[in-house]
């Protein structure tokens, strides 16, 4: 398991290659990248800043990956979340999961994203030409996370 909170960008191909490195049983690699769109809740974005709760963030993400492992026979997973100042089009988050079969890889990747969205202590602030504003939590994210406990 690799968990990283960082200001720098990440390299999806390198992270996926690292998940396979030295393993002979990987048949499926599912990955997800979340990006800063040019348009946010508050209209056109000029930037975004990401705050987090250092210490709890890493703990929370580790626990989420452990829960994915407990539910699904996956081989390994990587979660990278950027913090600090981001521009439209920038990468925000990477979740990559290695498994023997695709069903488990897809499910674990989506599970980790759904839980990250609702449980990991990150907060987004959008910057627009009219000023900045904290992003509101979305009910659709709560529903996405709830589907795993149904």
């Amino acid at each position, binding site marked *: 398991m690799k968990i990283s909170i960082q200001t720098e960008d990440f390299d999806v191909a390198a992270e996926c290659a690292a998940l396979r490195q030295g393993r002979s049983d990987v048949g499926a690699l599912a990955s997800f990248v979340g990006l800063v769109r040019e348009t946010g809740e508050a209209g056109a974005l000029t930037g975004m800043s*990401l*705050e987090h*709760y250092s210490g709890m963030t890493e703990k929370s993400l580790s626990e989420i990956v452990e829960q994915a492992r407990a539910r699904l026979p996956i081989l390994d997973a990587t979660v990278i979340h950027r913090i600090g100042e981001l521009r439209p089009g920038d990468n925000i988050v990477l979740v990559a999961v290695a498994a023997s079969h695709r069903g488990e890889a897809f499910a674990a990747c989506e599970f980790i994203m759904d839980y*990250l*969205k609702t449980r990991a202590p990150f*907060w*987004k602030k959008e910057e627009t030409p009219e000023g900045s504003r904290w*992003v509101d*939590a*979305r009910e659709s994210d709560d529903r996405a996370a709830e589907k795993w406990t149904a």
Partner: protein
Amino acid sequence: MSLKVLYFASLRETLGKSSEQFALPAGVASVGQLHAHLLARGDAWQALAGTKNLRVAVNQDMATMDTPLRDGDEVAFFPPVTGG
């Protein structure tokens, strides 16, 4: 009893501080009692009551108003998370 209290995101901005360390008066033994104690400071501290779906963590685990507090605990108040 001494606690470290952290504030994040909009709450940090409204309160004008990201953390404080303070000795609690007797009788404050749970998150709910700490919350009431902070609210009683008045002014900007009403943000603690005005934050929709206020979240709290004790020692970096999600907690509730009923969670008991112990000396040296780290308590964090924050709005619902919006990462990813």
